[in-house]
């Protein structure tokens, strides 16, 4: 069989274990993932970089069906549509004849697969275009060979190759076998389309390839895997981070109908890294039997050193730290002198609690071990990490571990940590390789997450006679994500400081940023938008507070603080990270930041007369190398109940591939931002999370969600670097909402969530 030809690679077969390895030939293609320069950025700097080999990504069947491999994980961002769409456009394929198949975890073959950081499109737009262009060139060469004409006389057009002088045509299906024998053209010889010729990219007419499967219940998520002879498992995990089983009595559990085995899982850590926290698994004939069996376990826990973790007391300790001078991480001018000489000083403190991702599909994975080889199925944001860590846990080579990626029922960063894959593999090993599916219940998910950090942001400003800031101090204190890997890590890392605290490009001459120590008492992890959430909440609320103190319009004041349009090097701001991107290609562009503010103000009718009890709030934030501004309209009734009639968002993420999905991501980010502002809080008592389910850990429901969300996309240029989309929509929403509440009521919210702070 020729490498470009593949018949019927359906996802069903793929999910049932058919490897793609027999169908592609990636051998011998020059590896170009790593550039020669000393310092690498973007996709070049990610583990295993990028691959643009059409033989790894594109196959064409005899009937002309084009199948594109998607190597990034689908969690709602639409990547299983946008990656094939990029390839199809350059390939001149007819979209109706394009299918998608999901890559297993194999970064050597496909390039980096760690689907987080809002990176898929900005890192793989160009490689995917080259895949499509190379495959198109091979089809053209095949047709020229068949017709014995110069290749310059032929041209691919909408799933056919045409011989221009004679009008002869051959379909892609008829050419596939010959095309497969053509050499892969050298990268530098590829002819990429002029963006004016794009059929699909940027058009916004493309429906999700998985849409029909989703609405008919056919779509396969991690929790849906079913294998013959499979056991269903749930795990009783230590309720406190670092805890262990002190004693176990499983006699009653084993009497529960349908329960087959009780199996301890060894804890690893702290530090947790991506490993299971250990505990006791109950395996049964179905999930319910396992849940009932777990209820009957008698376990006493040794809580360890985090048994005293109390998030209320911890908040006070963070506040104390935030009020004292600490490690200086940026120091422009002379804050102390400028503040002392200022006409007026303003200060405020903001708090954002722990949050849990609470993906609608909780973590779930299935594993089996046959003849010394392990296969894993699940909802993984980082399948290569799952593969490497399962191999490590089982004492196997990663070559003997295959990780199949299903759809993800939400990810938001939780599913980039494959602890549940390791649990499934360890349990399969304990039952002689039988297939075992581990399902996390909602209380498991809330009790043993990798939580969004908890933070206090202390801000001080000195303003001149006109109310303009001349001195700015931001002291940010929060346990770092790196504590999950290194218990000695007590300061925010470059990547956390680079999320909207150190790299704030305001036109203020005297700026000091400080970062006191904080010790983590639970697993801290990535949560969609990460540290941008507390940083943007504090910075954008504080700017509005300064505007109010100066008696100025918040939008005009925000633009003044941003200052004139200029391209600021992140390095001059002390930001050595810059979302992993080159400081030359991706400077902080205050012109773009101004433009989203101006656009959203215009589109929302900023300044319009509103009914009583209504208010508008504005906020803007730069993150994941994109610029987003939001105007939220709130209505606060006489009981203090907040509703949100309308939100406008302006986004500049550079050029777009599937604008409808950009819009959808902004809408979703808006709703998540509203939930963070109004409802979300994970709290700890005696080391234990207090919330068990959605009754206590509330998330936004339809009636509380904004009635109307209008997204305004700033047109981009395909010649310029792209920005992220999945995350940058969240950070401006909580401050815009709280600024709107201030406009409506005069009440300033500084501690999230709002919950009943406005209750009258």
């Amino acid at each position, binding site marked *: 069989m020729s490498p470009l030809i593949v018949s019927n690679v359906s996802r069903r077969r793929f999910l049932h274990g058919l490897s793609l390895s027999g169908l592609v030939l990636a051998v011998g293609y020059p590896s170009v993932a790593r550039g020669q320069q000393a310092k690498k950025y973007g996709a070049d700097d990610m583990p295993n970089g990028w691959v643009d080999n059409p033989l790894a990504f594109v196959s064409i069947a005899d009937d002309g069906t084009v199948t594109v491999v998607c190597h990034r994980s689908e969690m709602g961002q639409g990547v299983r549509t946008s990656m094939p769409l990029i390839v199809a456009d350059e390939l001149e394929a007819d979209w109706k004849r394009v299918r998608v198949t999901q890559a297993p975890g194999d970064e050597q073959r496909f390039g980096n697969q760690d689907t987080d950081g809002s990176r898929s499109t900005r890192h793989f737009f160009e490689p995917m275009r080259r895949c499509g262009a190379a495959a198109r060139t091979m089809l053209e060469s095949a047709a020229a060979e068949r017709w014995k004409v110069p290749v310059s006389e032929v041209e691919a057009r909408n799933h056919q190759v045409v011989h221009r002088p004679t009008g002869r045509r051959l379909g892609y299906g008829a050419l596939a076998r010959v095309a497969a024998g053509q050499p892969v053209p050298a990268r530098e010889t590829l002819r990429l389309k002029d963006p004016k010729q794009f059929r699909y990219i940027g058009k916004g007419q493309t429906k999700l390839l998985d849409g029909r499967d989703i609405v008919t219940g056919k779509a396969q998520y991690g929790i849906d895997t079913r294998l013959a002879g499979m056991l269903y498992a749930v795990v009783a995990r230590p309720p406190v981070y670092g805890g262990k089983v002190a004693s176990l009595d499983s006699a009653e559990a084993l009497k529960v109908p349908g329960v087959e085995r009780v199996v301890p899982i060894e804890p690893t850590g702290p530090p947790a890294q991506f490993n299971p926290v250990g505990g006791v698994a109950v395996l049964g004939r179905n999930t319910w039997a396992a849940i009932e069996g777990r209820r009957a376990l008698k376990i006493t826990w040794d809580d360890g050193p985090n048994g005293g973790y109390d998030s209320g007391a911890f908040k006070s300790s963070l506040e104390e730290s935030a009020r004292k001078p600490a490690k200086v991480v940026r120091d422009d001018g002379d804050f102390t002198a400028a503040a002392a000489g200022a006409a007026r000083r303003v200060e405020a403190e903001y708090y954002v609690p722990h949050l849990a991702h609470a993906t609608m599909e909780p973590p779930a994975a299935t594993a089996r071990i046959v003849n010394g080889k392990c296969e894993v199925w699940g909802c993984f944001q980082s399948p290569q990490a799952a593969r490497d860590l399962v191999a490590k846990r089982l004492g196997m080579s990663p070559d003997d571990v295959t990780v199949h990626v299903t759809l993800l029922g939400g990810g938001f960063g939780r599913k980039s940590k494959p602890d549940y894959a390791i649990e499934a593999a360890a349990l399969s090993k304990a039952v002689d390789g039988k297939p075992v599916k581990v399902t996390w219940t*909602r209380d498991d998910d809330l009790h043993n997450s990798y939580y969004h950090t908890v933070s206090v942001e202390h801000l001080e400003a000195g303003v001149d006679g006109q109310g303009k800031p001349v001195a700015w101090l931001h002291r940010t204190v929060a346990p770092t994500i790196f504590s999950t890997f290194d218990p000695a890590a007590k300061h925010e890392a470059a990547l956390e400081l680079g999320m909207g605290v150190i790299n704030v490009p305001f036109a203020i001459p005297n700026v000091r940023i400080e970062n006191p120590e904080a010790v983590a008492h639970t697993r801290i992890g990535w949560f969609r938008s990460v540290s941008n959430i507390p940083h943007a909440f504090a910075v954008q609320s504080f700017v509005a507070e300064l505007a109010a103190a100066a008696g100025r319009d918040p939008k005009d004041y925000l633009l003044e603080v941003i200052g004139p349009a200029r391209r600021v090097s992140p390095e001059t701001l002390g930001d050595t990270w810059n979302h992993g991107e080159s400081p030359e290609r991706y400077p902080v562009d205050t012109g773009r930041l101004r433009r989203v503010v101006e656009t959203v103000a215009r589109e929302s009718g900023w300044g319009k007369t509103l009914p009583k009890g209504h208010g508008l709030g504005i906020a803007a934030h730069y993150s994941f190398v994109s610029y987003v501004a939001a105007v939220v309209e709130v209505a606060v009734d006489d009981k203090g109940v907040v509703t949100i009639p309308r939100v406008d968002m302006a986004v500049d993420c550079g050029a777009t591939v599937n604008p409808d999905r950009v819009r959808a991501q902004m809408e979703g980010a808006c709703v998540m931002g509203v939930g963070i502002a109004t409802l979300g809080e994970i709290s700890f008592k005696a080391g234990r999370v207090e919330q068990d389910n959605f009754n206590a850990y509330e998330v936004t429901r*339809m009636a509380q969600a904004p009635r109307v969300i209008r997204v305004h996309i700033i047109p981009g240029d395909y010649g310029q670097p792209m920005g992220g989309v999945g995350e940058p929509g969240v950070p401006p929403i909580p401050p815009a909402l709280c600024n709107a509440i201030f406009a409506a009521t005069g009440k300033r919210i500084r501690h999230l969530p709002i919950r009943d702070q406005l209750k009258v």
Partner: protein
Amino acid sequence: MIRLEVNGKRQNVDLPPETPLLWTLRDEIGLTGTKFGCGMALCGACTVHVDGQAVRSCVTPISAAANKKVVTIEALGADPVGAALQTAWVDMGVPQCGYCQVGQLMSAAALLRRTPKPTDAQIDDAMSGNICRCGTYTRIRAAIKQAAAKQGGAR
């Protein structure tokens, strides 16, 4: 042995009578379209129809569904209202991750059968038991209205 009728097909299941319908459908009968989200009737991901009513299958024991007609997402398209909703969902690009959408569709179908021309308040009422963590609510509302319009229930 408990006798269920799921999507028009007789199923005899040998399970304790308190076993939730959700896990019976998913793990024993193999209909994985119905999703687990909370186990406490708080999120709506597991919504199915029992004798035409939307119920949360995670808290419905199979004993309570015995000898009644259970319809899951796998058979929703056989019903004209269900099919109209599925089409509207795809056309309007409602799903993001898609996981909760099966439950959203089952709740929406029960709403439109009862109330062919729902007001915004009626949509809120019927749909607020269904959580979407991706935040697709504005599109869900629009798609319900489009399906209602196609069914002659425009407002």
